């Protein structure tokens, strides 16, 4: 329903000026194309890059042959095909999904908490999932069991955080942050307890490596299981992109503008939790991405979530595919992803803070 104020006359608005103003909050076609191409370019690069270098043309042929059944002359070895289709392809797709998911979650949380230092893990999801995974390893579970436990405990941790913060029936931002800290500490303590009691020969290293984060466990079969929840979360967040703008003005003002802030917070928390639990379950704890990328994107395209969210998807995906490539190439034994994102992310974040003078960018 649009009940426009009858007393405000319909002033003639210069159409060209109007267009120009509307475009202000949107990106130019060139910029859009560039943002869209970036992750795909890096995705393709990651297929032929690695210890086994494969020519780009051959990669294309392999892809055409095995994915679309194109009649191409087989000029490659079976090893190449396995590396491209069964190892690098699912890995690159998952890395893209993880990067996109963590980045959009970070952007949504930073808006909701009005704070640039908020990461997707603020409500305790990583601590909970880390504990769940460790529990799976201690119980001698198979990989699926470990991932399931990580996912479930990630969600349990956020649920505890959420309901602890509801002591006033609403969820004040400060209470969410505080109970997030409490729940994180609790699960970290439980994790330490597990680490302390397990067998130090095999299980302790397994837990530690798992927590450092890796794309190594992704296979073609499990890809859908990982990508689908992340995609659902991203779509959910994208749908409420404009309301996030209103929400970012603060709870009281958003309510005055007719926003059901509790519902909106609920949607944001559910979507980000689905995303980050899935990420931690499949790839371990990958820090900094959800903190740095939204910041960088806000600097590039401004704070309007209608533009910011799609931008974080593209840049986040590209960034993590890039980092994953480095982790594969830099040494014969893969460097854990979480270490790389921190080593690259932390100084980069410091640089961004310097550029934006500690402000919001944009």
């Amino acid at each position, binding site marked *: 329903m649009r009940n426009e104020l009858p007393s405000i006359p319909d002033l003639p608005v210069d159409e060209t000026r109007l267009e120009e103003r509307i475009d202000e909050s949107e990106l130019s076609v060139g910029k859009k194309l560039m943002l869209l191409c970036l992750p795909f370019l890096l995705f393709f690069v990651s297929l032929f890059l690695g210890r086994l270098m494969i020519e780009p043309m051959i990669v294309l042929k392999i892809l055409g042959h095995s994915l679309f059944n194109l009649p191409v002359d087989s000029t490659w070895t079976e090893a190449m095909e396995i590396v491209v289709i069964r190892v690098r392809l699912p890995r690159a797709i998952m890395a893209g999904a993880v990067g996109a998911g963590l980045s959009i979650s970070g952007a949504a949380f930073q808006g909701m908490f009005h704070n640039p230092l908020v990461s997707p893990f603020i409500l305790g999801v990583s601590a909970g999932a880390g504990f769940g995974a460790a529990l799976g390893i201690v119980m001698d579970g198979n990989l699926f069991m470990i991932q399931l436990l990580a996912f479930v405990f990630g969600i349990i941790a956020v649920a505890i955080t959420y309901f602890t913060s509801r002591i006033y029936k609403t969820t004040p931002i400060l209470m969410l942050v505080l109970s997030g800290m409490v729940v994180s500490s609790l699960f970290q303590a439980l994790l330490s307890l597990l680490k302390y009691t397990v067998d130090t020969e095999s299980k302790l290293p397994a837990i530690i490596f798992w927590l450092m984060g890796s794309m190594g466990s992704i296979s073609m079969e499990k890809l859908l299981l990982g990508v689908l929840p992340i995609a659902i979360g991203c779509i959910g967040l994208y749908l409420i992109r404009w309301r996030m703008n209103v929400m970012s003005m603060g709870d009281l003002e958003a309510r005055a503008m007719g926003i059901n802030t509790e519902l909106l917070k609920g949607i944001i928390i559910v979507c980000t939790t689905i995303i980050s639990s899935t990420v931690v379950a499949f790839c371990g704890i990958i820090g900094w991405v959800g903190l740095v990328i939204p910041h960088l994107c806000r600097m590039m395209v401004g704070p309007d979530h209608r533009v910011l969210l799609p931008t974080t998807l593209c840049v986040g995906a590209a960034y993590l595919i890039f980092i994953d490539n480095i982790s594969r190439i830099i040494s014969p034994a893969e460097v854990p992803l979480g270490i790389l994102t921190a080593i690259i992310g932390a100084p980069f974040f410091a640089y961004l803070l310097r550029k934006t003078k500690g402000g919001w*960018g944009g």
Partner: protein
Amino acid sequence: MTMSRISIRSACFSYGEKEVWRDINLDVAQGETICLLGPNGCGKTTLLNCIHGNLTLKSGNIQIDGREISSMTVTQVAKSIGYVFQEHSAPFPYTSLEVVRMGRAPHLGLFQVPSREDTRLALNIMEEMGIRHLAKERYTNISGGERQLVLIARTLCQAPDIILFDEPTSHLDFKNQAVVLQTMHKLVKKGLTIIMTSHFPNHAWLLSSRVAMMGGSGFVAVGPADRVMTEENLSATYGVKVRVYQGVSGPNSLNFCAPDFKYSETTAM
């Protein structure tokens, strides 16, 4: 008598054990300006928040067009009542146009984004308020007075017919106070209903509004500014000796008040 838009009946409010005010009654008709006056902590803003449904009364009731405010959803309230807040921190550097356009929120669905029509409406309102030139400016970079005008524009974009103002001129310099008051005056002339809190009794005369003077635990006096803003009532409300003057300049005459220093000196010291 015209049908009242807002009716407040034997309203009481308390924060926990601490009672703020009790037995408040007030009827507001369409097109009226109500100015809530009173010392710090007398519960002016609390009353605004109760009218808006942000806070819940301890007892009594508040109705908007015959509907209990507590039974309305935030979206329903936002369509008939706008609220211009006093305290305002703006963390994100949105453009002023985007801030004004946010006022369309109650009219858009959960997944909707504002259409070109909404943008046009926002721009029209800015044009009419004389702040069209700010549309592209970052909201965080404009002056306090301009920001207040942008917030009023945002509230108008909501298309409510009642607007609550919480100390609309605080933190503003003299010129910006005048601009904001003039804008409010125009809104009233268009038929909007305004309820405002103020620390400046003179603004009530300037807007020739009805005044509700608060003190102690409720209203000291309610009525047209010229009638109830007497030296006795003002002194009782603020707890200092206040003198009311009548100023004449050419064809214009206006009442104004000021504290009486001489009186205070002889009694307080």
